[in-house]
């Protein structure tokens, strides 16, 4: 009997149990994959997470773009962003100012205009003036200019030039100036039907003339023809790629989930185990404490505490653990109570072995499988709770979480506008990360407690 017990408590056995069980093995593989993704995210993209809330950083990305793989269904209407670059040529230079010219050529054969056109010119001193000549395949042209030149400009920056062009062509002021209509004006046939959706196909030419202070260098120049599809999971209203956000969410979700679960299960098992083991007055007192924490309404209470404390990741994990240990304490207590009635415990008592030794030799080893199973099962709950708090806007500062992505999806009316990728993928990730832990937990539970 004793031999089998010591084998049962070995780490090797847990590994064997999990791996032998099919769903347990799948769970382990999935978790290893997620850990690899987390490490990849932390090592390669930690700088991106600081820029996540900075909308200027994402200016050159397409906004509300659907996943790129959608373009296989309709390549002429769903397409990715194209970026073109050129060699700047200096056409005038003096000791008061320099004039550069940038000439771009591109062909357009798609059924739709780009969602936006972004001009990106990075110089080592501010640009003083910028003028863009846009020549369509049939030779008609538009001149775009702005009163406040910036290094990154999109069509909204030039809306006054384009608006007057539209008014000139169709005879009335356009009802709305979204980047989509402005782009259509640059790609449609001149005349009354400028905005009716037909696209002029062929070779487009762009000639950008910029005036700068002397000795200015153009470091980078690009014209982005923004598509409506981007990456694996699309982008949000700020142009932030959802796939990147999901990748950045991995380390946080795993870290907080594991940390919370381990702290609360260890705390719960120790308190519940001691309580059930000792019995009597101590048991009543500890049970009372457990009940006090148990009756606190977890979610509203956490919301209040997160609101007041504005915790970082570790403190948030501790707060959640503080509210969840009673559940494990209750189960551990009843397990300890049933162990107490076993004959070997009574034998120890008769033999005069001190009670703390009985606790360590008989109780703790039998509570360990229970603790491991519940640690695995507790991870999803903790992850969901953290994502829920982020969804409510209570994200620890400087972190990108799936809940916070969903929060911005809700506040930007993603459901109303049909931007399904923004809602679907972050939520699917919460499920995908939770499932392997549940599977492992169930596998251990089944192996240790016999399941059925």
């Amino acid at each position: 009997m004793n031999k089998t017990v010591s084998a049962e408590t070995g780490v090797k056995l847990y590994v064997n149990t999990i791996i032998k069980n099919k769903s347990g093995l799948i769970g382990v593989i999935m978790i290893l994959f997620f850990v690899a993704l987390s490490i990849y995210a932390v090592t390669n993209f930690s700088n991106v997470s600081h820029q996540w809330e900075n909308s200027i950083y994402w200016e050159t990305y397409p906004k509300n773009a659907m996943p790129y793989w959608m373009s296989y269904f309709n390549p002429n209407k769903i397409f990715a962003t194209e970026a073109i670059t050129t060699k700047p040529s200096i056409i005038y230079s003096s000791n008061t100012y320099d004039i550069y010219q940038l000439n771009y050529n591109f062909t357009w054969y798609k059924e739709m205009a780009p969602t936006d056109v972004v001009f990106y010119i990075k110089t080592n001193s501010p640009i003083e003036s910028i003028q863009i000549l846009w020549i369509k395949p049939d030779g008609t042209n538009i001149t775009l200019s702005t009163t406040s030149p910036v290094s990154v400009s999109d069509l909204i920056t030039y809306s006054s030039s384009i608006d007057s062009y539209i008014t000139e062509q169709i005879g009335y002021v356009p009802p709305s100036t979204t980047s989509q209509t402005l782009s259509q004006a640059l790609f449609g046939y001149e005349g009354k039907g400028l905005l009716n959706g037909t696209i002029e196909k062929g070779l487009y030419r762009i000639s950008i003339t910029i005036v700068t202070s002397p000795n200015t260098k153009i470091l980078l120049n690009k014209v982005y023809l923004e598509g409506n599809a981007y990456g694996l999971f699309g982008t949000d209203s700020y142009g932030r790629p959802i796939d990147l956000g999901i990748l950045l969410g991995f380390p946080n979700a795993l870290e907080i989930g594991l940390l919370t679960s381990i702290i609360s299960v260890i705390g719960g098992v120790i308190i519940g185990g001691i309580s059930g083991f000792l019995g009597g007055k101590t048991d009543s007192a500890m049970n009372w404490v457990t009940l006090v924490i148990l009756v606190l309404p977890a979610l509203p209470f956490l919301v209040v505490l997160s609101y007041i404390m504005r915790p970082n990741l570790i403190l948030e994990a501790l707060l959640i653990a503080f509210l969840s240990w009673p559940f494990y304490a209750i189960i551990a207590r009843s397990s300890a109570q049933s162990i107490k009635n076993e004959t070997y415990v009574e034998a120890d008592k008769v033999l005069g072995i001190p009670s703390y030794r009985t606790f360590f030799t008989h109780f703790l080893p039998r509570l360990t499988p229970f603790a491991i199973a519940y640690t695995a099962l507790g991870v999803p709950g903790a992850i969901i709770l953290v994502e829920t708090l982020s969804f409510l806007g209570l994200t620890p500062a400087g972190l990108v979480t799936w809940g916070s992505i969903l929060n911005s999806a809700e506040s930007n009316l993603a459901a109303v506008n049909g931007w399904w990728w923004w809602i679907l993928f972050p939520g699917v990730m919460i499920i995908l990360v939770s499932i392997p832990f549940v599977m492992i937990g169930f596998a251990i539970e089944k192996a240790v407690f016999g399941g059925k």
Partner: protein
Amino acid sequence: MGYKTYLIKEIIIYVTVLIAAMSLLYILTYPVIQEVLKATVQTEAEGFKQAILKHASGHGNLNLTSINILVNKYKASLMAAYGLNQPLYLKYFIQMKNLLIFNFGNAYFLTAPNGSHKVYAIIAAYLPYTIILFTTGTIIVILVGTLLGLLSARYAGTVWDKLVPTIAVVHSSLPTWWLGFLLIAALAYAIKIFPPGGITSIPPPKSPLMYSINMLYHMALPLIAFFIVNVGGFAYVVRSLVISTTKEDFVMTAKARGLSDSRILYRHILRTASPSISTQVALAIAGSFAGGLTTEIVFNWHGVGWLTYEAILLNDLPVILGINFVLTVILLLALFINEMIKGYLDPRIKAGE
């Protein structure tokens, strides 16, 4: 020790637990509460001053100094009532007393539909909607979950048996609010079958019958989300309880007596397992009120969860604290009633063991 002694003992435990839980809430939120109370006193004193000035302008027999004296007196009395000028231990007792008599002070910005600024009036106006939605949801989940759990326990090794653990995985890994969000995008905006949120259409229908039908129509989507997420978990609990009862000796005896499987299941196993199941039910209903916070927000269902969120957005701390107290009381009541029923049903307690 009979049932009466047991009852008294339990009452003492639960009342002390309530006070302890509230003390914990008080300690953790102490600095904020002080701020809240000071602001409340300030607004009430300001209101009092305005009222006097309005009154005085009609008569013209009060000068500004005497008004200020009056206002300061009023302010001092308010400070005393909230215990702001008291030592720490007295502050604590006054706060506990205020909480226990549901005196949470005034809300900063939120008002009840009838215009009252009192926090208890605001909570009382929103709580019924939470109760309607989540009690209905929990009852449906309990009925279907118990049925699934029993089927799974009875037909061990068949599809039924595999189904329950699978949907239990869903329960542990799917956030209700996200499912709701997705369902709204799919079934309210992409395919327009259900309303995207709210309790009734605006304006609400006049006749009571149409009103309830309209409300049920608005409840459908949140109920679907709640059901999908929770039914698996409940079925899994029932299944485990039934399976563990099946291992008891009396089941073996019943089998030896040649009783039919269904008779053993319904008459013997279910009857024995029902107190444990009822504990789960009590906890599920009480817990759903607190846990439904985000679901209510997603579906724009104006219950306490939605109210909590509004209170957070508006920094309305008295409301947040009041809601926490009310939810704690509800959970404690559920546990207490459950304990009472269990004690009543358990012959060992009656016999005074």
